[in-house]
């Protein structure tokens, strides 16, 4: 034992023991410095720690006054915390691993202003975490505006355009009297000619010698008159057939017009999905962009690439096959307690983080973050970030039973626009990011939906009021107003579509109200049309039948006259006269 300098060793062992106790101060400083350095290089912006305390004996580390700069806005903090207490695993430290068995992060606050710029001197912007929230594209077009425009056009268009009945009736109203007038004229002429012939024959009979030529021409003239009378009779006999044809044409025109008016009454259904997207798209665009941005930042902050361990200054560190490989840093469980404010609403949050590691592929469990918020924004958030496989797989689930929804103005100016009162809604949001593929379902079901303002329809306030009243009534009576948003695309170009029950209710209400308005107008026009028809048809019918009867009577009179004339112009009648003339001539006067 004389080979040892006991006089040297004993004091120094005692000194070492004292140094261990005193080192708690030094280790705190080392931890403080290490966290600032490694955190800054990982985040890409300054990480500040006010004070650090460490205890080798208790394997504990406590840091206070933590500020993590937002790399996108270096005068603001991404996160602030009052204190971070960590209980370390001594056995892991003996293996050069930093394993936190349990930790508590207290006084967490999101955001906050800094007193100084948190940018690193040689910060590379390309490694800064996150970026601007992507602008989501809304697949909906101006469907609602198009529908309103079509409705306005239907109501303002000349509803009588294209109807056949009115012009037909006007034509018949004009034609029948003209036709009757013409036939009456013909009958009158015939009557005059018959009278003339009769007068001529009678005169000729009274003076046969003088009227011999007339008597000789009388039969021919009579035959001609008979022919004309027959033509007139045929024309009059054809009137009933014409009347029947005209009645058929009137019936066909009426059928055509009724069909045309029915077509004009039917209003195209408004695509509920497009309407929902048009009304709600702007309200969802920004929150969805922030959601995707949050996923991006979580993805970048928890890269699947291990944090590169520093290489030794001399030589190369060899990794032996069969060595139990564990991550250099592992946080098994970290409790998180804090508060925040979103849209002016304060909330308290409590949750935990498990499985945070520097080398996800060596740690079989995915990182899980779960917290609940209470106060002005009640939420439950669960995030699972799995980097153990070839493809990173992240899942974010957010639920709330009573999410406050502020007053909203839906839709855009100049077309269909609604304003809703503040309400609460049940929310369930599940978003998955696998590789670069984004997918998600978001369901929001408001408890109630009170519509305060009306549809604004430029140029037709009355129609706008009618449509709005119909919508407000339908929304207040609707039992289920769930709105679903389906996320898709890739994280670099995300898209979303909106399926809204509210959209379907509004679309149905608008269609019904629009149809009612158009139907009312069409019925009004139809009724006028019917009245006009009812006024004109009897007159036309009367004129048709009156003309026929009248002309038949006149033709009968003509025929009687012709018969009489025929009797008068018989050869016996003329010979007897001549014989009477001759006998009077041969008989000497006594």
């Amino acid at each position, binding site marked *: 034992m004389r080979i040892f300098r006991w006089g040297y060793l004993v004091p120094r062992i005692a000194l070492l023991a004292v140094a261990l106790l005193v080192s708690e101060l030094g280790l705190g400083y080392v931890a403080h410095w290490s966290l600032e350095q490694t955190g800054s290089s990982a985040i890409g912006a300054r990480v500040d720690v006010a004070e650090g305390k460490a205890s080798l004996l208790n394997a504990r580390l406590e840091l206070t006054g933590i500020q993590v700069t937002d790399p996108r806005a270096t005068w603001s903090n991404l996160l602030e915390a009052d204190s971070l207490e960590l209980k370390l695993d001594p056995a892991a430290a003996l293996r050069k691993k930093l394993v936190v068995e349990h930790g508590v992060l207290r006084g967490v606050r999101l955001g906050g202003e800094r007193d100084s710029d948190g940018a690193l001197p040689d910060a590379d912007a390309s490694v800064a975490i996150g970026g601007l929230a992507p602008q989501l594209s809304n697949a909906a077009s101006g469907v609602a505006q198009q529908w309103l425009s079509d409705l306005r056009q239907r109501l303002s268009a000349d509803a009588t355009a294209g109807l056949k009945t009115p012009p037909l009736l006007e034509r018949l109203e004009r034609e029948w009297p003209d036709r009757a007038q013409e036939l009456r004229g013909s009958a009158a002429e015939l009557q005059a000619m018959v009278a003339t012939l009769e007068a001529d024959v009678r005169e000729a009979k009274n003076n046969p010698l003088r009227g011999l030529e007339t008597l000789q021409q009388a039969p021919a003239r009579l035959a001609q008159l008979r022919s004309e009378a027959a033509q007139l009779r045929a024309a009059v006999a054809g009137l009933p057939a014409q009347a029947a044809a005209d009645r058929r044409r009137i019936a066909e025109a009426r059928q055509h017009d009724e069909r045309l008016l029915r077509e004009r009454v039917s209003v195209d259904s408004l695509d509920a999905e497009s309407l929902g997207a048009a009304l709600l798209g702007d309200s969802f665009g920004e929150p969805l962009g922030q959601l995707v941005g949050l996923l991006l930042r979580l993805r970048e902050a928890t890269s699947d690439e291990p944090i590169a361990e520093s290489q030794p200054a001399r030589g190369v560190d060899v990794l*032996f096959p069969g060595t139990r490989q564990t991550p250099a840093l592992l946080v098994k469980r970290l409790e998180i307690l804090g508060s925040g404010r979103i849209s002016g609403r304060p909330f308290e949050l409590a949750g935990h983080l498990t499985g945070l590691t520097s080398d996800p592929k060596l740690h079989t469990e995915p990182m899980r973050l779960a917290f609940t918020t209470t106060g002005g924004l009640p939420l439950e958030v669960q995030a699972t970030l799995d980097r153990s496989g070839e493809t990173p797989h992240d899942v974010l689930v957010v639920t709330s039973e009573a999410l406050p929804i502020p007053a909203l103005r839906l839709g855009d100016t100049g077309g269909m626009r609604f304003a809703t009162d503040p309400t609460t809604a049940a929310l369930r949001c599940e978003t998955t990011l696998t590789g670069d593929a984004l997918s998600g379902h978001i369901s929001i079901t408001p408890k109630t939906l009170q519509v305060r303002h009306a549809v604004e329809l430029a140029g037709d306030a009355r129609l706008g009021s009618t449509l709005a009243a119909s919508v407000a009534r339908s929304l207040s009576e609707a039992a289920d107003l769930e709105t679903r948003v389906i996320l898709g695309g890739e994280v670099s170009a995300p898209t979303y579509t909106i399926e809204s029950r509210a959209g379907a209710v509004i679309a149905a209400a608008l269609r019904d109200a629009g149809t009612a308005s158009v139907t009312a107008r069409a019925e009004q026009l139809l009724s006028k049309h019917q009245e006009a028809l009812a006024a004109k048809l009897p007159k036309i019918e009367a004129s048709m039948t009156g003309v026929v009867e009248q002309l038949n009577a006149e033709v009968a009179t003509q025929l009687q006259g012709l018969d009489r004339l025929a009797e008068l112009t018989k050869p016996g009648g003329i010979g007897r006269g001549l014989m009477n003339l001759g006998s009077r001539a041969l008989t000497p006067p006594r």
Partner: protein
Amino acid sequence: MIAVLLSPVRQLVELMLGHESDRQIAAGAAIGAIVGLLPKDNLIAASLLFLLFSLRVNRSAGLMSLAVFAALSPLADGLMHRLGSRVLAIESMQPHYAWLYDQPLGPWIGFNNTVVVGALLVGLYIAYPVFAIVELACARLRPTIVKRLQRFRMVRWLFGSRIAGGLVGSAAGITGVMGDQQA
């Protein structure tokens, strides 16, 4: 302040004039040579350094040897890296290496570093030659140097500047040597 500046010179003189034997000086130099070749951020170097100060060997020789070989070690890094790589690549030893690495303090030992292993082997290899050479040099040169150094007041003054209680015996020993010489 002056004592701190003169400390290396004093150690050299103490090395020559101290009461420790040539073997102790040589042993200190050998240990210092090994530590000097090794990278310092591992338990092997720390243990050897602790051993240097724990054993009854000449610390001054050890520290001087450490400084010399630390300055020369970068020149031999290539050799030590190749040597260490060969040793660490031995197939039959892999399970043993892995077992040792998984033990507590295993990663702190540093044996998985190629230069550490190579430097340790080179250091162990040259330890005995260093020991032998230093011992021989001390046996041959030390009496002559001591005789010449004792003529200088500065040397006597340097020994006088050490007022720690543990040095009284050394001063008495030196005085005894100097007294013998004067006699």
